């Protein structure tokens, strides 16, 4: 599973992208976030307020209860501010 972080989520985690192999009990996006938060440090800070975190799986927006599959590209980023 490939994880990507953008904008201040990238800055807070200190990671732009990483390969991750979450344990079997990680089914949904919410599970994945919980697993990342347990790493502590920047991850805990980055995910402290999920109301300002958006998630895309394979480049499509998804909700927190979206079920993940092996090989997914999961991106975390704040609400967009382009245009």
């Amino acid at each position, binding site marked *: 599973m490939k994880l*990507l972080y*953008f*904008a*201040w989520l990238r800055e807070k985690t200190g990671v732009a992208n990483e390969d991750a192999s979450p344990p079997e009990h990680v089914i949904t996006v919410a599970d994945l976030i919980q697993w990342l938060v347990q790493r502590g440090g920047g991850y805990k800070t980055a995910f402290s307020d999920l109301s300002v975190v958006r998630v*895309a799986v394979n*480049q*499509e*927006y998804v909700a927190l209860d979206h079920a993940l599959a092996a090989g997914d590209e999961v*991106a975390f*980023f*704040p*609400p*967009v*501010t*382009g*245009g």
Partner: protein
Amino acid sequence: MIRVQQEDFNIGQEIDALTSGNTAIGGICTFTGTVRDMGSDRQVTAMTLEHYPGMTEKALAEIEAEAAARWPLSASLIVHRYGRLQPGDRIVLVITASAHRQAAFDACQFLMDWLKTKAPFWKKEEAEDGIQWVEARDSDDDAAARWKTDK
């Protein structure tokens, strides 16, 4: 057509390339977003636009296809820049051309509203009191919400 690029664009040339020779067109609407020196209430000296390569192109193509499905467009173009920009610089260009004036206006506004709320770009502003990420505005969500078809 969509393009995501670091380079500037020339509005007149883009309009010509998209529309010239097409005599079915009756109206062309364009919107160009530029960097204001007065961003979120602070004097901005520069800004950097980060994006999500791959998803950006996909999101823009989907948004454009939806506009083409909803309005009778003869042609459309979305160009969005990324990288470091300064006040007065162009950020985004949307062009819509149609036989009908209202369709051109509506589609152009629809595309801008969705760009603002769906296209994965993030702005970081540099000002004298420091550097900070621009926060999304509720007014942009409200603007996009009016195009929802399920209401």
